[in-house]
């Protein structure tokens, strides 16, 4: 038994290393092309989807306001570096800490709510944030956006092209993924999953559900804020539409498609939903119809998402073939 677990641990490690390798090599075929630009956004979205999945897929707490934390991160970095010419790295840390603190504070009243009420409250937070991005024109530039955000740099090395930014963003994403993998397979992760399955039973087993929910909410806000800062420095121009309710729904779709309660599922979802609009470019704006259909049909027919659905399909097909042979 113990041995079995060690083997499992080892295979987890191998899985992660293989994943790192894939990330490392992915941009090579199109080093200069358009795709590595898209792959940067896959990285940003992976962080966002991962943050949501920890909250929704593991702890079972929905948030329709993730775009708010993303936006706070982006605008925080954007405003501090352009209006106050702060060092971007310092700004990033400062913003991440403040957003996490903000999430921690609102987490207590918000996560007392359950189900639909939680969904509506987080949605409310998201919309208020978006209104603030639009209305604080002096700071954010309002609907017309904020431009001139500097690229990140270390020493004399500036992240000024797609390939460099790709590795920058994915460096952060990989760390977030590693931390999340550690987390979900630990005491804390078990506590979160227990809350998801039965909050009452979890509490009777001594799990402090209230604190744990707030903690994971804070962590997911932190990841989202970092993703926001990175996004701002990569694209150098941000506007409120990138942090609207539609984005929160898009993130939800990523998580549902990839697989609720699966770290790699979040990445898969982010990958598919970032590439999809590119593929659907011919039919402009077609994407929200596809998202809608995906959300409904996945929830009804494949609630485990693709990461569980695809292996399931394989298992069903392979024995069938053997049976024939």
């Amino acid at each position, binding site marked *: 038994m113990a041995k079995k677990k060690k083997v499992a641990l080892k295979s987890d490690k191998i899985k992660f290393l293989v994943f790192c390798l894939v990330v490392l090599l992915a941009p090579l075929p199109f080093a200069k092309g358009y795709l590595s630009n898209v792959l940067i956004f896959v990285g940003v979205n992976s962080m966002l989807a991962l943050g949501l999945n920890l909250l929704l897929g593991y702890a079972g707490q929905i948030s329709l306001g993730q775009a708010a934390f993303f936006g706070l991160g982006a605008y925080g970095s954007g405003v501090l570096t352009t209006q106050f010419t702060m060092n971007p790295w310092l700004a990033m840390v400062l913003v991440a800490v403040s957003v996490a603190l903000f999430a921690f504070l609102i987490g207590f009243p918000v996560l007392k709510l359950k189900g639909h009420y939680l969904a509506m409250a987080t949605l409310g937070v998201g919309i208020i944030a978006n209104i603030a991005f639009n209305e604080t024109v002096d700071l954010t530039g309002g609907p017309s956006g904020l431009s001139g955000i500097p690229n990140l740099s270390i020493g004399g090395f500036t992240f000024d092209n797609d390939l460099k930014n790709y590795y920058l963003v994915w460096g952060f994403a990989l760390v977030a993924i590693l931390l999340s993998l550690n987390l979900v397979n630990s005491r804390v992760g078990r506590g979160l999953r227990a809350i998801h399955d039965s909050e009452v039973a979890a509490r*009777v087993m001594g799990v402090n559900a209230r604190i744990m929910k707030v903690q994971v909410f804070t962590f997911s806000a932190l990841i989202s804020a970092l993703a926001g800062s990175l996004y701002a420095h990569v694209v150098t121009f941000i506007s409120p539409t990138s942090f609207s309710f539609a984005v929160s729904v898009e993130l939800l779709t990523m998580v549902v498609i990839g697989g609720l309660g699966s770290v790699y599922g979040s990445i898969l979802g982010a990958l598919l939903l970032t590439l999809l609009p590119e593929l659907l470019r011919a039919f402009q704006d077609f994407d929200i119809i596809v998202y809608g259909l995906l959300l409904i049909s996945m929830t009804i027919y494949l609630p485990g998402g693709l990461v569980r659905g695809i292996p399931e399909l394989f298992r069903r097909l392979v024995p069938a073939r053997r049976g024939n042979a």
Partner: protein
Amino acid sequence: MLRLEGIGKRFGGLTALSGITFSVIEGSITGIIGPNGAGKTTLFNVATGIYPPSEGAVLLGEKNISALPPERRARIGLVRTFQNIELFGKMTVLENVMVGLHTQSKCGFLACSLRMPWQMSEERRIREKALEWLDFVGIPDLADVEAGALPFGKGRLLEIARAMALEPKILLMDEPAAGLNSRETAELAELIKKIRDLGVTVALVEHDMDLVMDICDQIVVLNLGTMLAQGTPREIQENPEVIAAYLGESED
């Protein structure tokens, strides 16, 4: 050990409990019986802090714990199982018990996400502990099965293992024998005695009279939210009121 003082509970207009006062003596097995809807489960819900009582107090040892939330009560040794088993269905059997060891481990968010060395050794320790508890209830071979896929009887055992993992001072069991066949029930009786012999005080709600009469030192009878009688199994069996209200009814 556990003392309930004048417990009352109302749901809107419905009085589910009123004036319930009794003690569970340390090291004993107390049975709580009563017809369906008598308020037994509600009493457990109040005792463990899932519902706040409308009136009265819950005492553990000398301490008034009425204001503590369930997780705090669990930490000081008051643990329960559920009538409709409440397992963490999407987790493995072993992980379920490991959640039961939550209070005996302390690695937090940071230590877990950074996978600190002491977190790894704590993890190993609670894994082994969890396996021991699975052994204790007799299902070590099911460790890697998803809890939601367990047959009912095994699920009950897992609930007991998970609760025992907290090393409670007092264990409340809500109808542990419901849905078990006679062989499983006999094994359960042995298991409960084994739990008592570990020094854990037990209180159980049960409809299976043979089981209750066999293992309990003290019995409390509830009817329509009030206490009808309290005494040894022998006294209860001979109490005419109880026979009229409860035993008589079940003979219909």
